[in-house]
């Protein structure tokens, strides 16, 4: 449909898409600012956690399951073992973010590379990459994670690699379709007519122009993975103790739901706010970059 399109005059279409009344932005902008602040706060806390005057993550500070804000025990109470909930939440940032960001980065790097190769090579190599992607996609993910948990020592690195691996196909596909859309653009042709080699075209022309949707998607994937990590703890294949991931805190608090519901409230809230923030940022990036989904 590209080739048969008759010559058209410049259209104002591109401009039309940015049309959103500013006043309505206000709420969204506040949400964005709050989200970015929250993520920045988390990042800071994760970095300086060791410098803060906190008890150790495995150090008992009071009786078990003390409620938060009760006056007895620490501010956010203690968990079932009597450890400080606040401390564990803060150290939990490291794990949840490490898993979320780590896995996303792995998926992104591999996915983007394969996606670019697929878009460029076409033919047999593309078919092979498609088979691999569908293989990963059609392998029951939880089965893989559970099986993997028995093969290698469960832990953050394992989780990061496994989840990263599972998320390669979506990145691959996104990159491929973004790259394919660029492949027909004249600036690629122009570069080719100037004698640019394949690598130069892929990395100088294609990559920078197809990476944007991938990056905004990645932010959303971070959020998705944080939630998945939470669910994995329920099946016992999440982060092993005593490392305090938010998911494992919820999973261990779940059995106590009737007596100490606050034990799952705090980590749930952390996941909730963090995931919400990443989603907000992701949405914002997507809107900024694509101009769709606005309004």
């Amino acid at each position, binding site marked *: 449909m590209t080739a048969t399109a008759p010559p058209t005059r410049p259209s104002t279409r591109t401009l039309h898409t940015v049309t959103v009344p500013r006043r309505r932005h206000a709420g969204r902008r506040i949400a964005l600012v709050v989200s970015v602040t929250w993520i920045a706060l988390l990042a800071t806390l994760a970095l300086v956690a060791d410098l803060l005057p906190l008890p150790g993550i495995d150090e008992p500070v009071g009786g078990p399951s003390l409620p938060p804000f009760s006056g007895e025990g620490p501010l956010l109470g203690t968990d*079932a*073992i*009597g*450890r400080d909930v606040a401390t564990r939440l803060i150290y939990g940032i490291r794990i949840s973010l490490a898993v979320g960001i780590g896995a996303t980065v792995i998926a992104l790097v591999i996915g983007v590379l394969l996606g670019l190769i697929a878009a460029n090579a076409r033919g047999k190599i593309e078919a092979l990459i498609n088979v691999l992607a569908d293989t990963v996609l059609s392998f029951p993910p939880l089965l893989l994670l559970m099986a993997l948990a028995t093969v290698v020592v469960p832990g953050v690195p394992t989780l990061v690699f496994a989840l990263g691996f599972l998320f390669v196909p979506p990145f691959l596909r996104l990159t491929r379709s973004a790259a394919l859309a660029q492949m027909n653009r004249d600036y690629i042709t122009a570069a080719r007519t100037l004698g640019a080699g394949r690598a130069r075209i892929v990395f100088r022309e294609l990559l920078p122009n197809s990476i944007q949707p991938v990056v905004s998607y990645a932010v959303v994937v971070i959020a998705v993975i944080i939630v998945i990590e939470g669910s994995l703890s329920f099946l016992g294949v999440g982060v*092993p103790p*005593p490392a305090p991931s938010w998911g494992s805190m919820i999973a*261990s608090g779940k059995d106590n739901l009737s007596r100490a519901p606050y034990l799952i409230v705090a980590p749930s809230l952390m996941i909730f706010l963090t995931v919400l923030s990443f989603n907000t940022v992701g949405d914002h990036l997507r809107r900024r970059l694509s101009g769709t989904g606005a309004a």
Partner: protein
Amino acid sequence: ACSTSGDPAPAGPASATGDPVAGGDATIILGVEAVRGLDPALLFNLTPSGDANRMAAIYDVLFWSDASTGEVHGQLGDSLEPDVDGTVWTMSLHPDIVFTDGTPLDAAAVVANYERIQDPATASPLAGLLEGATFAVVDETTLTIELTEPNLQFDKIVATSFTHIGSPTAMAEDPDYANNPVGAGPFVLEEWVRDDHMTLVRNPDYFQEGLPYLDSITFTPLRDPTQRINTVQTGAAHAAVPGSELAFKQAATDAGLALTTAPAGGGPVLMFNTQTAPFNDLRARQAVQLALNIDELTSVVDPGSSAPDSLYGPESAFHPGDSIFVEHDAEAAQALFSELAADGNPVSFTVTMPQSGFFTRTAEYLQSRLAQYDDVTVQIETLDNATLDERVFRKQDYQMSAQIVPVTDPEPNLAKLLQTGGQTNYMGFSDPELDAALDSGRASVDEKERTAAYATVEEIVVAQVPILPIRNQESFTVHAKSLHGLTLHGDGSLLYDRLWLNAE
């Protein structure tokens, strides 16, 4: 004894509602599915939340041991008596018991069951317990069992491991016997949809006239313990076995449910691998023993449970009365830790635990409390059951781990655990004196001698610390107030002939 019922005639709170009435369908929630079927020779998950309850309903029991005291009572069997030194045991059965396929449950059937277990082709995990034993049918209801060495406590082994008898005909003829069990118990398997439900209906030919009371029993597996209690609470089931965590007792009581419990001895114990560093050094084991405050551990890790004060349960004849367990002593513990560190052998170890709530919490507790001492470091490793089996139980590739050892009577579990080369002696522990004491406890007819022997056992365990008991065992079933006649046997499963429901 059980708190709600111990005697065949129900006593306690349940009796307030009157005499048993016949009829009714009960649903009972268990923790896991009988994945591998219900062949008594292939007993695996013989825990109350697993196969033990199903087996008891289908096969009934020859003999049962009281879940609290370990006393052995007859059911399908009448008596089980040793000769003087306990080498030859004579078992007599109730007359005229028939399996639900019509074949008789007689002495020959029992022998056939036991010989099948011995047959290597069966690959029964129980084979070891019957190694070398020979059986003889005396008459239709009597048989003898000759052991290779004297064991005056063999009745307890029979009551826990060889108490379910299946129809030899069915076993021989049905290649898929495990999925189509035929017993002589109070109920007959009618329908089994795996992971959904197993329906049993009343056995009209049950040997006790008028029993069972119930028309049917449905077992449903439910993995999540909280959900098991929820189900009983909402009336969708009559009873549930929430599992080994005692904290659920509280949840059940809060939900207005009844509890039937049987406090016993033993329970979860920490195991020290005495074959490798650091716990090949007695001081390291002692240091941990001194460092931990078991009372606190119990209340933190499993609120609602109690700390053990002996290897033997509070109702056990062998309970010493005054505890000889070592008191928590932080300073002494620190001294030992420091001493070991000074020797160049600091106590640094990994605790390897199953991925269940209780054990994981125990590990975390351990780590958090030992973290307060200098010169100790603890790592945690949680493994799924298969890996745990492989690493800890088979290869003994661990430093500290845990297992649950119910000790209603020292025989057979305590012996298996502590004797040199014992079946569950994964600690690699060996102490001749202890072995002698166990042998004498097993072989002795004299109660005094037994008491003395087991007192010695306890002293050695406290001094040598191959294991460290961390919680009292207590079997319990959560049930609706309408369900009566709960009798806990063995590790805490029910006897199904006497269960009854009153219409509410």
